[in-house]
Structures are given as structure tokens and as C-alpha cells.
């Protein structure tokens, strides 16, 4: 090997910690090793550095722990980009200068390779209409570019008020509640090879317990504060009458099996493409007061390092063609019909990057 070598993680997201190791030939005595970082990178941690000082964007390493047993001496630093870059792929140059005790100098360089995602709207209707007969949907085609798995949240507003909802339905809520409370424990044991069996008597008991919980004002408060539950669901829970319950339970028994199918497909529906997952905001629920209403959409997305990117925005006009029940709130599901991933990066570890920052 040469006197000094650097080894760095081959790819990272913005703000993700990147480990860079510096390895030295055994027996090299140095007076200092100077690492020059670009301004866009910050230092997060040191590995096996005994003595150092920092000045502006320089890190001067004066001493490291040298073990007699290892084949090479090494130390490491972890760094991260301060902000996400605009470019989808950048490399940031890091220089490492070895100043030996005998005055010899060797300089090497390496690059932090940072990649990010970018989401765009490919196609969205300028206008949709609602009528008395069928449900209207809002189809969106998206384009994913760059790198990284993202989750997105859609926020819709009319006249400044939020009208988007989504996330968990009341059925989901019940189901998860049962699971969390351990009411389905035995039925949901994995590994017996039988899958999931639902016991009707247990279900009734579980539902009764849930009903009792609804009378607990603290529990209700908690439910109301839960942003994941639809407003509609809370209203329904509050006005829960025995007669309605009967009906609901009858449907529930018959369809519990079907509900499991729904759960299966829901999860798949949220994972709309290889890189994109929908977190919430898949429905617009609003009172439409005018014949023509502007619906403003914002799509937020974040990567696995938790970086939230500037939202993409669009406006869709809603044309109200209803003649009956015009005061009723309408539900418009947003359907992500297509995600074009033709410009998603592959093999970023080996990618040639032009942008040096």
C-alpha cells in the first residue's frame, strides 16, 4: 500500500453520517495529518483519534491510537452534509495531507458521494367534477428522480383550510386497537402455519370491551387528538348506538375475512412504486360551497435520513355538478395512478458524478 489511504462509504443521503477511514502504513511517524473539508460538510464524530484540533474547515490530527497487533494504523471521522443539495448527485472533495516526522509530505483526496430524491408531478387534471351519481377521484401521475426511498404526504386545502385526510380508517383503528390491547393475541400467533384465525365469540367480547372504553372520557380525548383518525370516524364513534352497532357487527362478522384481504391490499396500495410510499393524505373530504372551487395540493416527501424536501404544488379546480345534497361533504380519493421511475438512479456506488462541491 501507499503510505496513506482513505476509505469512505460509497453513497449516502443528505445529512446521513458518512464514515471515512484513513489508513497508514505500519511504522509511519507523523507530526500531523491535515484533513480539509468543504464547507458543505460538517464533522460528527472521531474514531481512534487521540489528539486533534479543528480550525475553520480544517481538522488537524496530532495523535492516533496505534495498536501493535493490527496490520495497519487507522483512524476515522464521520461527516455529514449540512444541508441537502439541489443537485441529485454530488461529490464533495476531502483532502488529506500527511506530514511525517521527517518532514515528508503526502497528499491524497477522496470524495463524499451524496445522493437525493426528487419528486415531480407528471400529470394532474386541471379540473375534476363531482356529481350526484358516482364518486369522483383525483388521479395523479408522479415522476421520481434520483436516489433514495421516500414517503410522501399529500396536503389539500380550500380557501386556506386543510381538507385532506387519510391514514387509518375506523376499521383499521379498531383492528389495531384490538391488537395493541392484546385481545387477539392467541389468534395472531405466528409460526403455527395456520395463518390468522378469528374467533367470533372473542370478537364480540373484544368489541364489548372497546365499547366500554368509548365511555371513558380520557380515552375519547386521546382518540380525538390522534391525527391519524378521520374526523368522520370520531363522529361515528361518538354517536355509536346499539342499533347501529348490531348492523355494523353483522357486517363485520361476515367480512372479517374480507377485511384481512383489504389489509393486505392496503399495504400494497401505500407502496405505490419501488421508491415511493404514501404516508397520509389520500382523501380530500370537504364541503364544496361554490360551483367552482380551487383545491390547492402540496405533496411533501422525506427520505430515510428524515430530510424533508420542499413540497411540490398544484391547483385543481373542482366543478360542482350536484343537484341534490349539495351541503354534504364530499369525499374525493386521490389516486396515484402511476410513478415514472425511469430517471431513478441505479448503482450509485459506482456512478460517475460530474458535480464537485
Amino acid at each position, binding site marked *: 500500500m501507499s503510505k496513506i489511504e482513505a476509505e469512505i462509504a460509497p453513497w449516502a443521503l443528505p445529512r446521513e453520517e458518512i464514515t471515512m477511514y484513513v489508513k497508514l502504513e505500519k511504522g509511519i511517524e507523523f507530526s500531523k495529518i491535515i484533513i480539509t473539508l468543504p464547507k458543505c460538510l460538517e464533522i460528527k464524530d472521531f474514531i481512534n483519534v487521540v489528539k486533534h484540533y479543528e480550525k475553520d474547515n480544517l481538522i488537524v490530527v496530532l495523535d492516533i491510537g496505534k495498536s501493535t497487533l493490527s496490520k495497519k494504523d487507522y483512524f476515522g471521522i464521520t461527516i455529514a452534509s449540512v444541508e441537502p443539495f439541489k443537485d441529485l448527485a454530488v461529490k464533495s472533495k476531502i483532502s488529506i495531507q500527511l506530514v511525517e516526522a521527517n518532514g515528508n509530505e503526502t497528499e491524497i483526496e477522496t470524495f463524499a458521494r451524496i445522493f437525493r430524491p426528487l419528486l415531480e408531478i407528471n400529470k394532474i387534471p386541471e379540473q375534476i367534477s363531482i356529481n350526484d351519481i358516482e364518486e369522483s377521484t383525483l388521479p395523479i401521475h408522479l415522476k421520481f428522480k434520483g436516489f433514495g426511498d421516500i414517503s410522501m404526504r399529500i396536503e389539500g386545502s380550500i380557501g386556506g383550510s386543510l381538507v385532506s385526510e387519510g391514514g387509518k380508517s375506523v376499521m383499521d383503528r379498531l383492528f389495531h386497537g384490538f391488537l395493541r390491547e392484546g385481545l387477539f393475541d392467541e389468534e395472531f400467533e405466528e409460526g403455527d402455519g*395456520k395463518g390468522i384465525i378469528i374467533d367470533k365469540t372473542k370478537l364480540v367480547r373484544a368489541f364489548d370491551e372497546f365499547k366500554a372504553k368509548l365511555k371513558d372520557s380520557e380515552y375519547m380525548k386521546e382518540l380525538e387528538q390522534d391525527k391519524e383518525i378521520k374526523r368522520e370516524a370520531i363522529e361515528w364513534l361518538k354517536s355509536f348506538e346499539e342499533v347501529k352497532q348490531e348492523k355494523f357487527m353483522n*357486517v363485520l362478522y361476515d367480512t372479517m375475512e374480507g377485511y384481512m384481504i383489504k389489509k393486505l391490499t392496503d399495504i*400494497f396500495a401505500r407502496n405505490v412504486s419501488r421508491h415511493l410510499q404514501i404516508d397520509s393524505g389520500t382523501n380530500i373530504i370537504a364541503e364544496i360551497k361554490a360551483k367552482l372551487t380551487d383545491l390547492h395540493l402540496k405533496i411533501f416527501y422525506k427520505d430515510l435520513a428524515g430530510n424533508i424536501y420542499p413540497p411540490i404544488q398544484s391547483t385543481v379546480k373542482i366543478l360542482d355538478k350536484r343537484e341534490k345534497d349539495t351541503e354534504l361533504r364530499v369525499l374525493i380519493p386521490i389516486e396515484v395512478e402511476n410513478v415514472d421511475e425511469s430517471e431513478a438512479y441505479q448503482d450509485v456506488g459506482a456512478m460517475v458524478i460530474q458535480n464537485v462541491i
Partner: protein
Amino acid sequence: MSFSASPGDALGWFEKIKEYFKDFRPEAKSMTINFSKKTSNIGLALKIEEGFRKNRNKIKIPAYPGFQITKMQDASFNQIQALWKIIDGEWILDAKDLPPSDGYFVELEGSIDGKNLEGLVHIKPSFNRDGNDEVDRYWLDASLREPKKLEEIWTELQIDEINVGVKVDINKLFGLKIPQELKDKADSLQKYLHAGRQGDRGLVFNALWDFKRQERKTPFHPNDFLRIIQNLTARETLTDYLSVDKSYNIGEIEHPTKYEGMIPQEVNVQALTTLTLKDPQSIGYLTLQKKLYLEKIKEEFDKVLKKKK
């Protein structure tokens, strides 16, 4: 900014032990840490003078939770059985029972606090996979934070089962292969449920009819799918599609959110490695044979649909 804790913190109990054995010139020989189990095994060489043995002296070590004496050997590596006894909160060895030997070797096992372990080792897997149509790759990185300090105490040190785990997003893969039949069935069910909640008899009847028709068309039970997903995300199956560079092993495959909609959202794959003073760094890749795995998902889903038709 986080800086590492000193190795001394992690090895606190060892310092105490050395103190208890101080009359017998303890020499630290080896230390093996199991990172996943949070235990450490320490090998200590002792000199017990003949006079001490013959005078029927006893060695007493306070016993406290989280540490025990597991083994004792003489200089020729013969195991000395069951000499240590716990009496009134102390480990006691009656020296008169010891066979004559130039030296002895005691092995002790203790627990290590997780935080302190983190101070010994730097671990950083990549957050996001890289890859192409064939494979997904994850970067794995582990190293000793302060090898020099460890070497000052130990002639041999090994940290086993360091987990540089990665999260593999399994839902996305299943999502890519979900059969249309399942989606259709879910749609008809959704309508049925909706009708049921509205309490309109006509609506319920129509929706039910539609649902039953769908049911006749594709009469599978959702359990068939759940079972497949459980099998496909189980360790036995997934390990056929996962590989790691040679300094790593695949450990457990955990389903941390197994009840989230009954399907694991993601699975935690343990990539285990060992660090020693000789090899203080372990860097490599974990690879998922994505294309083959997707083909397997499709094959298994198709089996359910074909069987029922």
C-alpha cells in the same frame, strides 16, 4: 457531537475482579465480548503459591449479580472441576483442593452495559439501499473505536456478534407482485363495508351480492396469502436470497412490526461480524437478490390463485 466512552467504562467489573485477585498476580490474557448477548468472558492467569495452598487458605471473591466464575484450568489446561462454591454471597475456593501447578487460568463471565458496548465499537450501515434491477445492496461498517487502549489491557480481545443490521423494506417488494384478483376482492369488500355502515338495506344487498360473486370467482382465503408472506419473510427463505461479504454472517431476521397490518413492513436483518485487535475493522456489503426474490413471490402467489381456480 458524540464521543466514545473509554474502554474502562465497559470493563469496569474487570478492574474490580483484578483487585480481588491481586494477591495472585493476575494477568489479563483474553477477553471475548458477545455484542448481541451483552456478555463478556475474561481469561485471567493467576499464580497461587504452594505455601498458600498447603496452608489450607481460601480465596474469597464477593459475588454480585451479572458476573460468575465459569471455568478454571491448571497450567497444562486440565480443567479443575467444581471447586468454586458460593457461600454467603461470596465465591470461595479452598486452595487445598487445587492440584499443584505453576499457574492457573480462571475464566469469568459478566454482563456489559449496552451503552458501554457502543463506546467500544463504531457501527454504521447505510440508511438507503443502492442497487439495480437484479440486486439491492447495503453498506456495512464496523470498527474498534480505541484499539490501542484495549491492547494495553488485553493480549487477546475479540468482540463477536456485532450487529451491523439493516432494514429491508419488504412491503414494497410484495407490493410489486400483488395479484389483481386480490385487489378486486378488496374493492368489492370495501364497498360492502361502506354499505353496511350506512345501514341501507338495498346498498348492503347489492354490495354483498357483488362481494359473493367476487368470492366465487376467486375463492381463496386471505390466510393463504398471509401464510405465504410469513414463509417468504422467514429466515429460512430469506437467507437463500441474502448474502454478505466474508467478514460477515447473517444473524436473526426480525419482524419488528409484524402486526402492522399483519405483514411485516420491514424486516431487520442482522449482519453479524467479529472484530479483534488484529482485525479491528470490518467493511462490506449485504446483498439481496431482489429479482430472484420477486420471482419467488410471484410464483408463490400464483400457486394460490391457480390452486383455487
